[in-house]
């Protein structure tokens, strides 16, 4: 049986019954399932925050869990791309230390050229 880090388990609830149930369920998981579950739990933005953000963008309260999960995953990978590209910019410029906004801006420009950033259908009024 796998060692399970209980700090990583809670599915966003403090309900002791739900937690106990979740722990019991997870103790049945195979090692492979557990790895995938931990990766799932670490998948990035907190679901409650993402749900709120999506609700405010769509103007609708009904944001499904699968949609929240997918957008969180996509956004997290996008952040990874921005940071990866920023690091490449840094090494090209032989800059060291923490990543600076100028690196992020250049990374953003390059990703835009690669078509990795959705184009706004409504053009910005001020550039």
């Amino acid at each position, binding site marked *: 049986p796998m060692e399970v880090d209980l700090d990583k388990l809670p599915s966003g609830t403090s309900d002791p019954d739900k937690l106990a149930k979740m722990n019991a369920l997870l103790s049945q998981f195979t090692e492979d399932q557990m790895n995938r579950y931990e990766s799932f739990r670490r998948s990035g933005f907190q679901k409650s925050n993402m749900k709120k953000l*999506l609700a405010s963008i769509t103007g609708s309260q009904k944001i499904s869990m699968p949609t929240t999960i997918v957008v969180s*995953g996509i956004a997290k990978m996008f*952040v990874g791309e921005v940071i990866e590209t920023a690091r490449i910019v840094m090494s090209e410029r032989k800059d060291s230390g923490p990543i600076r906004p100028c690196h992020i801006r250049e990374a953003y420009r390059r990703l835009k050229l690669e078509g990795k950033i959705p184009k706004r259908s409504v053009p910005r009024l001020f550039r």
Partner: protein
Amino acid sequence: VMSSYWPFGLTGCLSVGQPLPETVALVEDIVVEYITDLVHKAENVASKRGKLLTEDFLYLIRKDMRKLHRSTELLSMNEELKQARKAFDVNEETLVVTNE
């Protein structure tokens, strides 16, 4: 949104020590704009049919193999958890009945 993200290791990605607050703020702006534009595009796709669906987002990233693969992975894990919980609840009910 970003302040909920730091516990998940973005700090380590941005720098060895503390990330610069101005960098964090810029990345947050960029991500929120990205999500907003992504949602608006998905709504455009959905409007021809009606309600916004998860599939609309999968359609938008269909050419990005990494994102598509990861998304379907996350969705299947979520579904697996749902089914596992259901089966678990059913088993528990069975337990109660047989113990009486």
